[in-house]
């Protein structure tokens, strides 16, 4: 099976970096170490898998769990017609992670979005600013501890 070999191959290449490989509801998933993200991503893009397209990059917040944040990256290989999901944990005490902007161009905006909504800091990002919220916005709205109804209007609302 071809898709097995991608995950198996990944495991062979990065025995320390890949924590777990699994298939969930038909999607291939690799759980990897935070430090190994950049080498693994480079291998996936340029290696036999040819994952030339970064489909999506987002984050999930699990308060109370260690590590608190989980970054989820979806890759797509046009030549093999396969999707791959990579997950990696980010500790709340150390919110830094390697940026993928050197590999995929759309990582620029995607990482700005995750930085804006979750507060993850991407090391090596050329211009890490908020993208949806305005400058001076407090907090990161997609974190679970940000209240749904908290208002921070840029211009004071009329009483």
């Amino acid at each position, binding site marked *: 099976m071809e898709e097995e070999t991608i995950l198996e191959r990944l495991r062979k290449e990065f025995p320390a970096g890949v924590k777990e490989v699994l298939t969930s509801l038909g999607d291939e998933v690799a759980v990897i170490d935070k430090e190994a993200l950049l080498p693994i991503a480079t291998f996936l893009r340029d290696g036999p898998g040819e994952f030339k397209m970064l489909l999506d990059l987002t984050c999930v917040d699990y308060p109370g769990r260690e590590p608190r944040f989980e970054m989820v990256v979806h890759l797509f290989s046009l030549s093999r017609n396969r999707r791959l999901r990579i997950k990696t944990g980010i500790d709340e005490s150390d919110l830094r992670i390697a940026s993928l902007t050197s590999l*995929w*161009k759309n990582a620029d905006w995607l990482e700005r979005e995750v930085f804006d909504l979750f507060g993850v800091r991407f090391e090596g990002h050329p211009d890490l*600013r908020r993208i949806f919220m305005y400058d001076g916005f407090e907090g990161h709205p997609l974190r679970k501890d940000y209240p*749904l109804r908290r208002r921070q209007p840029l211009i004071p609302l009329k009483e």
Partner: protein
Amino acid sequence: MPSRIQQQARQDTMLLNMGPSHPAMHGTIRVMLELDGERILNSEVEVGYLHRGFEKTCEHRTYFSLLPYTDRLNYVSPLINNLGYVMTVEKLLGVEVPERAQYIRVLMSELSRISDHLTCLAAMAMECGAFTAFLYKMKAREFLWDVIEQTSGARMTTSYIRIGGVRADLHPDFDSVLKKAVEETRLVLKDVHGLLDKNKIFLNRTRDVGVMSQEDAVAFGWTGPCLRSTGVSYDVRKAHPYLVYDRLKWEVPLGERGDNFDRYLVRMKEMEQSLRIIEQAAVRIPKSSRAFIAEGLSPGQAIQESRRQRVRKDIALSPNLEGSEEARYPDILASDKGFVVPPKEETYTTIEGLINHFKFFMRGHGLRPPKGEAYFAVEGGNGELGFYIVSDGTDRPYRLHLRAPCFHIVSALEQLIRGRYVADVIPTFGSMNMIGGELDR
């Protein structure tokens, strides 16, 4: 805080804001340009003016009640958004959808795709000065929306595609209205081809303007018509077939140069393919097992009678959305009662129906997908429209993320307009089909 472009701009250049509310920018987006005369040296695109916390809101809604929010993502083709969300939840739940409902979904998403492409090209043509083409396309769009409205009851905010199937069966007159809409759309496409394909003004503004290479398009995560205009053959409907797309005959039109004109042409050809799909699906759709009930007890009479005894007669309700649908449920909705809203006539006239209704809508009950996560993508008007849902076993998603296709496309705008003239921003931006609701979420 000064933005990047303000800090980096040269002393002798001019900074110009286009937008956020500019008549030629459909949708609120701000493009800051650093100009040397008319030439763009640098630019910075600022988005987020329509951010309304879609993903945050969804975490606080049940799987059923967040459906209307998905209408408002890409508001030009709401049915495809419904479909993308619903199919992701179905993947989590493992629901089997009846064949007729699958065909209805295909019909509806192709109608939406055409109206999406029509809107994009209409706006693009108008911004280049072709107002007639704009009016023609709007006319065609009205016919398509008539079809959608007749069955779903709404033109834009439809919420028609539901978990397990669709909200209601097709309208009894669906075939004739569809036929008219297809005919009219074909005529309009022919007219528009005649108006624009060899139009000198249009060609000057679009040919070899905003050229995207294949490598860059892939590196930027472009999907949909914009990616295909560069010659990469990737269509989610072909690559990962869902519903009944693999049973229908159609082609994936490709462009060659990846410029504005190719993006226009690919969309035009795609509409023709969508019409092909619609015509085939309308013929091959399995017939409904029961005819529409026009005569029977009125809803008030039925409730009156249910106080004395169980109602055995048919109940005639309005033809769309409030019809006596129970008998047609097997054709259009999944058979598992836990996944679908019980029919209204049962809710109002029997105690079991009422209990089912409450069980479905009560907090903490209803749809509760098992723990896990799923990514599912459909081909939206702009490209791969993917939903990533994490379920923790409760009745509301733990995390819902939308992969908005035009987010990736618009992120390439800065590169496409660098070194071009101010006037080139308009057709380039127009051909991208930026939709604020989807981009900013």
